[in-house]
């Protein structure tokens, strides 16, 4: 997937709209456009390249989650919004790791430029990372026990569902999108039961 020309998303509202419609090209565009800025910020503030890479992915997950919420209102440039998330995340990580270095992250943005909802939404919990790690491991072991057809359906749904529902309906031989959603639900339910069993053991 190539970086799209600026023309298509020159208007940030259009980009936002595309992201809400789960347009993967828009997602790729947003990811590629802002990466260098965040990596630079981490590297200039006592971070390693690996930490910068991880932080950027985490930042984009949070940003994507916020942006696609129906009640999200963009009150700054998208890059500013992303930078601020990354900045907050990095400050919290530094604090958590007991870095003694003074963090003076020169933001290219002004405080009043930021959406008011962001700091509240970024309630960082130190144990959050460990929890996510645990969740990830649990999920992987659950998926490993899931039947192949179900695993295939869940992977397809989460990896490609955006804008390609018709393709999935055909691929999994379903009557319509509702039938497909029910099938996905049942597969996820099986996964839930496997994981519940594991956690009870």
């Amino acid at each position, binding site marked *: *997937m190539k970086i799209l020309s600026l023309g298509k998303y020159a208007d940030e509202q259009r980009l936002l709209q595309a992201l809400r419609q789960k347009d993967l090209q828009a997602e790729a565009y947003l990811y590629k456009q802002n990466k260098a800025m965040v990596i630079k910020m981490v590297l200039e503030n006592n971070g390693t390249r690996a930490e910068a890479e991880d932080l950027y992915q985490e930042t984009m997950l949070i940003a994507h989650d916020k942006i696609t919420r129906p009640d999200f209102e963009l009150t700054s440039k998208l890059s500013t919004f992303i930078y601020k998330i990354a900045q907050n995340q990095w400050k919290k990580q530094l604090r958590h790791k007991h870095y003694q270095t003074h963090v003076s992250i020169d933001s290219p943005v002004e405080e009043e430029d930021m959406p008011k909802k962001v700091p509240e939404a970024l309630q960082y919990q130190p144990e959050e990372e460990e929890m996510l790690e645990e969740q990830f491991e649990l*999920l992987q072991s659950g998926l490993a026990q899931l*039947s192949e057809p179900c695993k295939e359906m869940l992977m397809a749904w989460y990896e490609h569902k955006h804008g390609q529902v018709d393709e999935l309906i055909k691929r999994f031989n379903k009557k319509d999108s509702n039938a497909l*959603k029910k099938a*996905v*639900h*049942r597969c996820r339910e099986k996964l839930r039961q496997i994981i519940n069993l594991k956690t009870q053991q």
Partner: protein
Amino acid sequence: MENTPLFPEEDELLIEQYLAGELTAQQYKKMQERMATDTEFAQYVRQHEALDRALKRQAQLKRFKQYDQELQQQNSAKRWKIVRYAAAATVAIGLGLVAYWQWHQKDTYSQLSQAKQAAKQLIIIEEQIIQPESRMGFAGTETVPNQIPVWLIAAPKDTSPAYFFGDTLQLFLPYSIEQLQDSAFVNTLQLSLIYDRTQNDTYFLNFKGKRYPLVRYNETPKKLE
């Protein structure tokens, strides 16, 4: 693992629509109310919600890795482009240097030619100018003795003596430069020049007792070497 569904089909669809944010405001409110009262349903929905988030996260991270790879490819393509431009620039500079060097070489060859030509022997020979009588009222000719510097230049052995007028008259003789640089040898040639203005301004070279009308030398000096 085929289990009986915990909730009816309608609920399965409702939960999926809830997770996808596709419920209307009214449906959403109703859902919240039900979750507030039905703990079993609420727990079921929350667990599906958590799984949905984890699966989404996993899929997104997978896509991010793909974007990173694409970025790397684009960056290396950019770097490769820069390398290609640099290589092209280097080639251009190289060609320029070669051209300059060749030009310089050409100059050197030219200088060498000149240097070799400089090895030609400059001598002063006698010249007789034959011209109409300058005195008023008398017909006839007069002979004016003169001395003229000439370059003696080695020419191929099968050529006849010839001349070329540069700044100084050049005489091409079928002898080696070593011979022409030998003044004793040159004396044996008995060289003298006649410039006959009464015969269409013709030069004649007296050469070993014979007179040769001089023809213009056409060969390039380079071929003489």
